[in-house]
Each structure stands twice: as C-alpha cells, then as structure tokens.
C-alpha cells in the first residue's frame, strides 16, 4: 500500500483543531485591540534624545554657587579710571548681583536685569534693558552705553567699560577684574582671585576714570523686574554727579546692610576718583570712621582723616574730624 501522494491529507488531522483555531482567534482579537507596541528602535531613539537633552541642560545650567568652593563671593567691586572715564561714569554702577543677574544703579535707584541660562540681559544707553535667550553667561558694561549680562555655565560675569574692567566668576567662584585700577575686597570667603578682586589691580592704559562697581551678591531673585537702564551719554557733568551720588548711596546701603568693607571700598573709590567733588571730604571722614571703629585699621583711618582735612569738610564736621584724627593717631602710634 502506498499513501503517497493523496491519502496523506486524509490520514492526518492535527489534534484539537477547532479549539486551537478558536484560541488563536481570541488571541488575534486581543492583539488587534491592544495598542501597537512601540518599536525598539523608537525607544532607543527616544532614550538617546532624552540623554542628549539632559546633558545639554546640565551643561547649560548656571551654577548658583561655585562647586566646592565655600560660600559665594559676597562682594567684589572694582573701579577703573582713565581718560575715557566719562563713558562709564555716566553708566552709574553696574552690579552683577548674581551669576545671572545684573543690576545697574544710579541716583534714582537700582535697576536690575536677570539672566537665566536661557536669557541674556543687556542694556544700552537708549534706556532699554533687554533679556535675550542664550546659554552663555557673561556680564559686561562698557562706556559706549552697552550693558550686558550673560549667564554661562561657567558663571562668568564682567563689566566691560572703556577700561575693560571685568569680574569673572568661574566654577570655582573666582572673581577677577582685569584692567581695573582698584577693587574692593569681598566680605565673603576669598573666592575672588585675579587682578582687581581683593586688591588693587594693575592700572591699565584703558582704565577709565569713572567708577564701575561689580558686585556679587549671590543668588538671583526670581522674577525680578527689569526696569529700563538709565545710562546717560558720556561727558555729562550731571552724570558725574550722579556717579558720586550713587557711590554714596551704595556705600550707605552697604553700611546699613552690615557690609562695612564694601562701604569702605565705595567711599575709597569716591575719594580716589572724585576728589574735586564737594562730598569727597565728608566721604573720607566717614571712611576713616569705618576704618577706625569697625575695621580696626587705625593707620588707614589716620590717612583718611588727613586726606579729609586736606580736601576740606563742612564746618559741622571740622571738630569731630580733628577728634577722630587724634584718636586714630593715638591708636596707630600705640600699635
């Protein structure tokens, strides 16, 4: 007998066909109703995109404080002087209040611009303050009427005037001021390094005569208003007066905030760069008081009192000035 070819189909019958077919139909219906499975390739692509986005976000972030470098820089100010001082002199004070915030102040008050990792703050002399999206963080103010604050992952901030003063805060919370004639020491931990921060920077040929203060105060204030920048044209006497006024106001603010060192720096800047101003003598008197009573530097206080006597003070201050001078002389001689 031979089965080949025809009887094979009739001789064979897979077992339990109906049940298996019905089971397969149920499975088929379930598969068709189920949401389509995501392809592995799509998953890989999505994961890669997420990783890339995370890396980009991490790289673009602005460190609020320097990693592992202790408390943030409390204050660092620099002043520059030079022939082109007029430009910056009209620009009042440009303060970098955080790694991503820049404040500009004049006699009418302080103006502030916040820059996020996606925002660049800039101001020009036309009275406009702008915030542009950028992952970089550099702050600068120049005498041409431009003021910029860019937040970078490296938290670099600079105030670039005609004299190119700069204050850079690196990941190590370093602040530097290049081409600056003088800079105030910061009251926080000495994260500041580079010329100009924590000491007098070497004078530059381009150093301007007008003060430009760069202040690092720590973290920015979210949602801070962005008032118009009030930079005035260079070579303006009114602007120069405003600078002195702003210096005094800032020193007063610093004093009331308990930041005596910064107040002393501001007063020193005022006396150094605006000796012709009628308020310079008074400023030196106040500076001497700070140095003598608060900072414990009687020698420096004695020098300040002598300069105040040379410049002249209002009548009401002559007596107290001499008394302070004698006390400073005694303490300085005792040491």
């Amino acid at each position: 007998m031979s089965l080949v070819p025809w009887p094979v189909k009739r001789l064979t019958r897979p077992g339990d066909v109906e049940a298996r077919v019905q089971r397969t139909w149920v499975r088929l219906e379930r598969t068709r109703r189920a949401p389509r499975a995501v392809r592995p390739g799509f998953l890989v692509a999505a994961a890669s995109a997420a990783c890339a986005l995370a890396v980009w976000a991490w790289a673009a972030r602005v460190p609020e404080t320097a990693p592992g470098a202790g408390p943030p820089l409390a204050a660092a100010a620099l002043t520059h002087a030079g022939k082109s001082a007029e430009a910056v002199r009209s620009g009042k004070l440009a303060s970098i209040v955080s790694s991503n915030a820049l404040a500009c102040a004049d006699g009418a008050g302080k103006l502030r611009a916040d820059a996020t990792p996606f925002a660049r703050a800039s101001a020009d002399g036309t009275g406009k303050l702008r915030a542009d999206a950028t992952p970089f963080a550099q702050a600068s103010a120049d005498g041409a009427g431009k003021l910029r604050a860019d937040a970078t992952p490296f938290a670099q901030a600079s105030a670039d005037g005609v004299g190119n003063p700069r204050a850079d805060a690196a990941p190590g919370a370093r602040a530097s001021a290049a081409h600056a004639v003088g800079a105030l020491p910061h009251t926080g931990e000495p994260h500041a390094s580079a010329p100009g921060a924590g000491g007098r920077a070497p004078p530059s040929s381009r150093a301007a005569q007008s003060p430009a203060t760069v202040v690092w105060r720590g973290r920015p204030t979210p949602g801070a208003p962005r008032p118009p920048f009030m930079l005035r044209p260079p070579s303006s006497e009114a602007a120069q007066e405003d600078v002195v006024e702003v210096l005094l106001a800032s020193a007063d603010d610093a004093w009331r905030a308990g930041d005596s060192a910064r107040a002393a720096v501001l007063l020193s800047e005022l006396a150094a760069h605006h000796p012709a101003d009628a308020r310079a003598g008074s400023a030196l008197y106040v500076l001497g008081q700070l140095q003598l009573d608060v900072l414990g530097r009687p020698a420096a206080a004695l020098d300040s009192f002598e300069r105040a006597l040379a410049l002249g003070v209002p009548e009401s201050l002559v007596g107290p000035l001499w008394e302070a001078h004698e006390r400073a002389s005694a303490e300085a001689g005792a040491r």
Partner: protein
Amino acid sequence: MVSPRPAPPEERRDERAPAVVVALRREEPPAPLPGGVETAGLVARARAGDRGAESLLYRRFAPGLFETATRLLRSHPAAEDVLHDAFLLAFSRLAQLKAPGQFRAWVLAIVVSLVRKRLRRQRLLHWVGLDAVADAPLEQQAVDGACVEARGELAVLDAALQALPVSLRLAWALRHIEGERLEDVADALGKSLATTKRYLARAEAHVARHVAVEGAR
C-alpha cells in the same frame, strides 16, 4: 518515480484512497462556517470595517490553513503562531488584495511565507545544535483509525521530507499533501510556474527514493 500530477479532483481522490481512508470517510470535517456568503462579499465588508465579516472569513478558512501549517511545521504551537500572524497581517493589508475571491489563496501565500521563515530559522538553530520541538510529526497527526502500516509510511514520508530543502519540501507538500493547484503553489512560494515545476520534480525524485509510490512499482 512519482510523476507530476495535476490538481487532484475529488472523484479521483476517492478512487485512489486506500481502504483505511475510505473507512474513515464517515468522519467528515466540520461543515465550513458559515456558508452562503461569497468570499468576495465578505472581503468587501471586511474592507469597510465590518469586524463580523472578518470573523466569518477567519472561521471559514482558518481551520484548513491551520491544518496545513501544522503539517508543514510539524508543530501545533508554531502553527498557531503562524495562523495568528497570517490573519493579523491579512486583515491589516486587506486593501492590498486585488482579487477578493482569492482570499484563501492570498492568506495561504502569507502562511507559506511565514512557514518558510520558521523552517529556515529552525534549520539555522539545528546547525548550532538547537533543534526545534516538533510535537506533531506526520505519523502523530494520523487519524485515530489509521493502521500501523499507514503510520509507518507517514513516518518514512516525514523523514524524507525533512531531508529536503525548505522550498522543495514546501512545494511538494503543498502540491501532493494539501492538493493545491500548481498555480497556487507557485503563488504561495513566490516563484514562477516553471521554477515550481522544477522544485516539484526534484522533490518527487527525492521522495520516490524513500517512499513507495503507487504505480511506480
């Protein structure tokens, strides 16, 4: 030798069936479900989104295709998988069917394509020492009333087919076990008619060396 044979008409199939098969003829397969509706009409309704028509198409053709897949693959679970994938693919690509009346042949081509992939994969696994489990060789698929001799011949035939290349095995099985038309075999294999005939000739020669063929003695 096994001579190429045309599509087996039912009357001739009856004449050539051995006594044991004739004795089993009372065990008729289930009636096709449900009848009365043209396949083309069901396909048209299924294309329009009628899930009921899809169900009818499945119930009409799935049992036969499942048996075919089981005989080709020698495995019930693998046949279920192929049936599932084939109808899933068919229903999702129903719009591509040019001749709605040829639904069965179209799905059969899909089934054969999937079976061929599985057989080739099994061959690769065999080369690396991983043999697929064949829970349903031909002799185990024999009907309950099959005699020992018939089961023995089925086992010999199954072993002979296993020695064939996949394409040749499929061509022979579709033609001489499933009784498909030569054109349908060619379509299912995706080969030309001449190539299919060549496959069949080679496969028949191989089978004839292992299995006694009626008329060749």
